[in-house]
């Protein structure tokens, strides 16, 4: 039987397209392409395959590029989604220098993609939804007018519903926000707890832009008094208050009464944090915390007790009379009875801090209550089309970027094999405690001639401005295991005179942090840390306002030492 499609000639063409000799001779190669393109009797599998071969070709001139694009245009209208997506990918990659052509192609492919999204085959629908999300990352408004196509129906399987909610959350704009929110609100009372929670988180995501309406909806949901709803709503509130301080008032009014309906650790932590940081606006905050203190013996999650300690101490600063008794009892319990060392140490730490005087406590504990700048930095990370064009129509969007990274990391690790013990020994060779770490850093100036100035204070705005004006001078990937503990990291960085500008909270995905440092000659080092997902690697991009490689290298090695140390403490 003939190969590919129905003609023997296709077989030859494929051979020709992949032959390096012909590929080297552009004229011959172009001829082959022309013949392929003009071939009428190719079935859809053949077409998809040929479009795939064509990816390897790089046109000589702009003229030739547009020539090829014109010839291929009909593939974009094919009735088979596989062919349409193959053609789209080819267009995106060929036209990588022409953003308007790319946008044009994405507009053309909208119809077929939407049709696939409402296709009868669930699986195809899912793949299409994943690709829609991918496009939305670069062109947020692309599907906004078609938002109704992404409303979930009762009979759809779970994984499709979750994708649709994500899409809805991303395509929201001034015109459709009302309808989208109304729809999402319907999902919040769904029978499936997972789906309901996903919908609530989605509303929380939209709340960053449309705060008032969302907070109102979330507040109404609290009225349901369902455990699984209340806990997620409170967590959403915590993130919101941090990113959009203007909604603090509304959130504080909604909180009283929630504590009865929260049982899980995450929700409790969020509620306690909110009560601690904004307790002066919530009349019954001290009493709620007191209840928690009363039940602390039966508390199973150490993280909740830690959160309770910090929150109560914070509230003590603003409402001392009401908290003194409870704080005393909690500290007593933590120091005398608690068996978890971390909690005990935290209790001891606060106790000694209190001994140092109330002003000292205030200086250390009264951090900013919210930090919208971090959210801004994250939001601006709109990805250009070229960053994912090569992933289009592959399994990457279907798995999701984070999961794909883990998968390919496994593959990479298997191929590297022997290198693994290396990284392990690197982690164990670091010094154990920060004091030693300090000595090591002090040694560094001798070798690398890098002295970081201790009190380099940059404002977030200035950092942002400088960050966007500079190019990345160095990028590196460090091995990283497990989650990040922001506090530990911040402390360790401070020891080596690196200032933290902004940091995601623990457990966020992707986890990001922005650091700055200045050496004695006035050279600035701006750094971004990016942890894509758990068990992955820490990606570091450093920007420098004066290009000097030797100081840059010493700066990198300082960072390396810090990460090595922290990694070691954790493991």
């Amino acid at each position: 039987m003939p190969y590919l499609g129905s003609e023997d000639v296709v077989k030859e063409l494929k051979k020709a397209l992949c032959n390096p000799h012909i590929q080297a001779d552009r004229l011959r190669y172009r001829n082959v392409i022309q013949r392929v393109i003009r071939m009428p009797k190719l079935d859809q599998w053949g077409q998809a395959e040929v479009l795939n071969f064509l990816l390897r070709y790089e046109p000589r001139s702009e003229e030739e590029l547009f020539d090829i694009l014109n010839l291929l245009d009909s593939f974009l209208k094919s009735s088979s989604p596989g062919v349409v997506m193959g053609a789209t990918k080819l267009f995106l990659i060929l036209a990588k220098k022409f953003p308007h052509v790319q946008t044009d192609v994405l507009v053309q492919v909208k119809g077929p993609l939407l049709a696939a999204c409402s296709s009868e085959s669930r699986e195809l629908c899912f793949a299409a939804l994943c690709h829609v999300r991918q496009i939305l990352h670069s062109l947020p408004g692309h599907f906004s007018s078609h938002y109704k196509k992404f409303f979930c129906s009762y009979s759809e399987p779970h994984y499709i519903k979750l994708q649709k909610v994500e899409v809805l959350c991303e395509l929201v704009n001034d015109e459709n926000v009302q309808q989208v929110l109304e729809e999402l609100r319907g999902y919040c009372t769904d029978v499936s707890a997972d789906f309901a929670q996903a919908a609530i988180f989605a509303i929380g995501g939209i709340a960053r832009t449309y705060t008032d309406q969302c907070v109102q909806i979330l507040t109404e949901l609290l009225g349901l008094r369902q455990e699984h709803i209340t806990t997620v709503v409170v967590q959403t509130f915590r993130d919101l208050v941090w990113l959009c301080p203007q909604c603090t008032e509304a959130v504080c009014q909604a909180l009283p009464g929630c504590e009865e309906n929260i049982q899980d650790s995450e929700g409790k932590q969020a509620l306690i944090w909110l009560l601690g940081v904004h307790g002066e606006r919530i009349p019954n905050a001290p009493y709620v915390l007191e209840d928690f203190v009363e039940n602390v013996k039966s508390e199973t999650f150490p993280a909740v007790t830690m959160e309770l300690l910090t929150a109560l101490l914070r509230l003590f600063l603003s409402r001392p009379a009401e908290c003194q008794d409870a704080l005393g009892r909690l500290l007593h319990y933590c120091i005398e009875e608690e068996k978890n060392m971390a909690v005990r140490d935290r209790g001891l730490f606060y106790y000694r801090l209190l001994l140092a005087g109330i002003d000292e406590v205030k200086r250390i504990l009264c951090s900013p209550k919210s930090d919208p700048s971090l959210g801004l930095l994250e939001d601006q990370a709109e990805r250009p089309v070229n960053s994912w064009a090569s992933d289009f129509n592959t399994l990457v969007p279907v798995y999701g970027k984070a999961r794909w990274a883990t998968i390919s990391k496994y593959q990479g690790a298997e191929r590297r094999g022997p290198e693994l013990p290396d990284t392990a020994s690197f982690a164990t060779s670091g010094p154990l405690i920060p004091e030693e770490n300090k000595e090591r850093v002090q040694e560094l100036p001798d070798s690398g001639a890098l002295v970081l100035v201790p009190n380099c204070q940059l404002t977030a705005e200035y950092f942002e401005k400088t960050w966007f004006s500079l190019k990345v001078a160095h990028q590196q990937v460090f091995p990283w295991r497990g989650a990040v503990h922001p506090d530990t990291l911040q402390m360790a960085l401070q020891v080596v005179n690196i200032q933290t500008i902004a940091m995601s909270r623990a457990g966020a995905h992707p986890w990001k942090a922005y650091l700055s440092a200045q050496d004695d000659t006035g050279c600035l080092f701006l750094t971004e840390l990016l942890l894509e997902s758990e068990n992955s690697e820490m990606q570091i991009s450093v920007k420098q306002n004066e290009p000097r490689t030797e100081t840059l290298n010493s700066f990198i090695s300082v960072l390396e030492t810090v990460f090595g140390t922290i990694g070691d403490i954790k493991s």
Partner: protein
Amino acid sequence: MISQFFILSSKGDPLIYKDFRGDSGGRDVAELFYRKLTGLPGDESPVVMVTSGGEWHHDDRHFIHIRHSGLYLVATTSENISPFSLLELLSRLATLLGDYCGSLGEGTISRNVALVYELLDEVLDYGYVQTTSTEMLRNFIQTEAVVSKPFSLFDLSSVGLFGAETQQSKVAPSSAASRPVLSSRSDQSQKNEVFLDVVERLSVLIASNGSLLKVDVQGEIRLKSFLPSGSEMRIGLTEEFCVGKSELRGYGPGIRVDEVSFHSSVLLEEFESHRILRLQPPQGELTVMRYQLSDDLPSPLPFRLFPSVQWDRGSGRLQVYLKLRCDLPPKSQALNVRLHLPLPRGVISLSQELSGPEQKAELGDGALHWDLPRVQGGSQLSGLFQMDVPGLPGPSGQGPSTTAPPLGLGPASLSFELPRHTCSGLQVRFLRLAFRPCGNANPHKWVRHLSHSDAYVIRI
């Protein structure tokens, strides 16, 4: 490029297993796949999955599967290939197997194992697709399909007649559509038949005040032909059929769709002028045309629901009165109508007053189900449901508004089938065959129109 292909029954028993490249694993991958699939947490997508072999083996495999008629059709690959093409290939394989074995199902597959392997051998070579056209394959397939036993009452539900698996298909012309597309050399006696289905899926969202938020119609014209290949046929569609928002045809409102795509074998010379599709279909099943229509429906919606909810928070008594009006033309009817209404948590008892004896209502899965086997066009049905919801405290501090429905109630969704009705109004005017059988009787032509609900949601 596919490494392996296998078919699992709904219980996970491997029915078919084929390794194309011999580059990975053994038969146990099928078991591995099923274990992974059933062990998935609810929020993760089962469409793609990955396994890595041992820690030091370079043996990564992606599973990509579709579910079709209760079977899992799974392909594994170690490459980062296009998900769209692969999913399309799997569903094409499902159609092909259906064509050759009659209908796709656990029984037919296990009766025709040899045939299935033969087909797979021809379709895929070393993991690459060679051809999926029924036409080409017919020359290479020697094995005859084993047709399932003739009519038995138990089989009735599984006779997946051509088209949607519907109530309607059980009363369709004959069970002929579920016989395999055999090569003509063996069965001269068999009837020449053509089945043409216009199937529409309707998704609708109606707001609580009765205004229409979303209408979406996905339509398909599907053809199953038992005629010898190469016989030409012409399908005439309604002449007022317009594509796009601007086109205008004929007088009156016309039948408007937003987008149309045709199968590549359809010739469109007469489409512009007379709305006639010309094609030479291969034997087997084929989607001739797909179309979509949104927001702008020419006919009134088939159903309207008028709910009224009374809720006494003090006693926890919830009373729901549902009035369902069917706005179809009086001659049409809707079948298998089922209303699904999610209820607040903790509903314990249900008392009901229904307007007809054949209706049925029950509680289950945190929702109320109201079954109406048959609803005549123009008729109006009602149901009064009383429930006790003891553990549901109201939203405190918002005043006693007894009329407001409790949270967690609704939205209602309907599922139904509308035989002989298309929501877009598209009809097949005629189906003409140029083929003149020698000695045989005229070929039988069956044309059916059918709409069914995809998601028909009414907010309360």
